[in-house]
């Protein structure tokens, strides 16, 4: 029995102004997958993620989310954006940030109910941030903020979770906690994650795709000859840093292939 893909990408081309970043991307993401997307800077990882939620319009090709257009389908997606510098003075509390996940798709311009408040509290307790729900978001550490953003994405009651570099600016301990949390979430939610962190990717995800303009993806995370070749075509950061075997060691004992 073939499973229905939750995200279907066909012949996708996208980019900025006069230069294409993504070329001929074809990808089916299936339910319950935990897909890690790796690739060099500027290779198009984030661009691909953004096309899935309509932040970037492809100039060719099609994306279906849960069989719907991106505009309707993204209501099934919980999005955790890349951490950027924020206005630490911004007057918003943790629970109000999570409340954003209930707006739009879930409650178009309607008042928040007690049931909604329960959802907010529940998602915050999932990421162990319920104790700090009345804090201003600017008073939190980077790792705490990241967890709040994950709670906000979960509050949308997503079938798919998209994360853009969720551990980019947190210390390893917090990163570990985030990955643990994601594995738990993955029991019910499909996850797509963009990351630089090759070690973490190989330790936690179910399948790996590598993007460098084109997508090199084989539907699993077994390191095959093909994959080695594609990694070769798609140089990732850690390889450039001279640590190729660490990347592959955890799952591939035929390191001599790579040498």
């Amino acid at each position, binding site marked *: 029995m073939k499973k229905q893909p939750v995200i279907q990408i066909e012949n996708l081309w996208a980019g900025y102004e006069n230069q294409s970043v993504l070329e001929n991307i074809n990808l089916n993401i299936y339910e319950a997958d935990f897909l890690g997307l790796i690739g060099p800077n500027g290779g198009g990882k984030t661009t691909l993620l953004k096309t899935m939620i309509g932040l970037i319009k492809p100039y060719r090709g099609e994306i279906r989310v849960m069989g719907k257009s991106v505009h309707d389908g*993204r209501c099934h997606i919980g999005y955790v*954006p890349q951490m950027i510098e924020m206005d630490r003075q*911004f007057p*918003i*509390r943790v629970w*109000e*940030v999570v409340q954003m996940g209930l707006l*739009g798709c879930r409650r178009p*311009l309607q008042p*928040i109910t007690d049931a909604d408040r329960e959802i907010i509290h529940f998602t915050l307790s999932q990421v162990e941030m319920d104790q700090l729900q009345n804090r201003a978001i600017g008073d939190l550490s980077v790792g705490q903020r990241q967890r709040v953003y994950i709670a906000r994405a979960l509050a949308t009651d997503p079938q798919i979770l998209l994360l853009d570099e969720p551990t980019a600016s947190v210390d390893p301990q917090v990163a570990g906690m985030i990955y643990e949390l994601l594995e738990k979430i993955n029991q019910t939610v499909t996850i797509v994650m963009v990351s630089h962190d090759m070690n973490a990717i190989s330790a936690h995800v179910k399948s790996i795709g590598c993007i460098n303009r084109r997508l090199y993806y084989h539907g699993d995370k077994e390191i095959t000859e093909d994959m080695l070749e594609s990694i070769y075509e798609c140089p990732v950061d850690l390889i450039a840093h001279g640590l190729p075997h660490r990347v592959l060691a955890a799952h591939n004992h035929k390191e001599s292939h790579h040498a």
Partner: protein
Amino acid sequence: MLEVLQYGFMRNALAAGVLVSIACGIIGTFVVINRIVFLSGGIAHAAYGGIGLGYFLGINPVFGAIAFSLMSALGMGWVHRRTRERSDTIIGVMWALGMALGIIFLDFTPGYKADLMSYLFGSILAVPSTDLIIMLVLNLIIITLVIAFFKELQAISFDETFAFVVNVPVDSLYLMLICLVALTVVMTMRVVGLIMVIALLTMPAAIAGLFVKDMKRMMVVSVVLSILFTFTGLMLSYFFNLTSGASVILVSGLAYFLSFLGKKFFVLKSPGN
């Protein structure tokens, strides 16, 4: 001090002060956290074109100002949304163009034009009762819309990308917010004048933002501060025979710098910082 209240113009002035403060406290909070102070200045100066048109057509200039500020707000807001990187240019253009249009309209208007100055520097001591009613209506519109869309407005101010992804109508809400700014600008213009609109729209909210990190509280504190500054300024202008609008702004500005320094001092002293 209470004897000032026996004058009708003083009662009107205080009422105008309260009404303007309510609008400025609420909308000023959005202006400050969204960093659209310059855009608000553009709207204020574009509104001047409407005042000129009002005189030219012989209607209440406030209505001309409302029409012009709303149109320029929609125009600038739309450009601000589409081409983020150069939006300050178009704001500058509208800023200058609005002023020029106002002056040209007045050139074409025959007769006495001394009242014009009151729009530049404010005339809180000469606010007619009809304007108070207009202000009251504008306030009711502002309060109703902000209460109805508070969550969404807060969401698009904090993280419009996420709001967009969950299908919050970001563009429409943003334009609504800009229009509310425009209405507030028109109201404030009557009290402290076009030149100083920005001051009352930003300073109370900026002070509040230094001390509270809750948006609703920030609005309440801004409103209270704004009322305080307007009243103090009015009293100063009454007892020392000073220009009222300028006095209000001077009081606000002084309070802003004092609280800025106070906050620095306080933060340095408090443990853990």
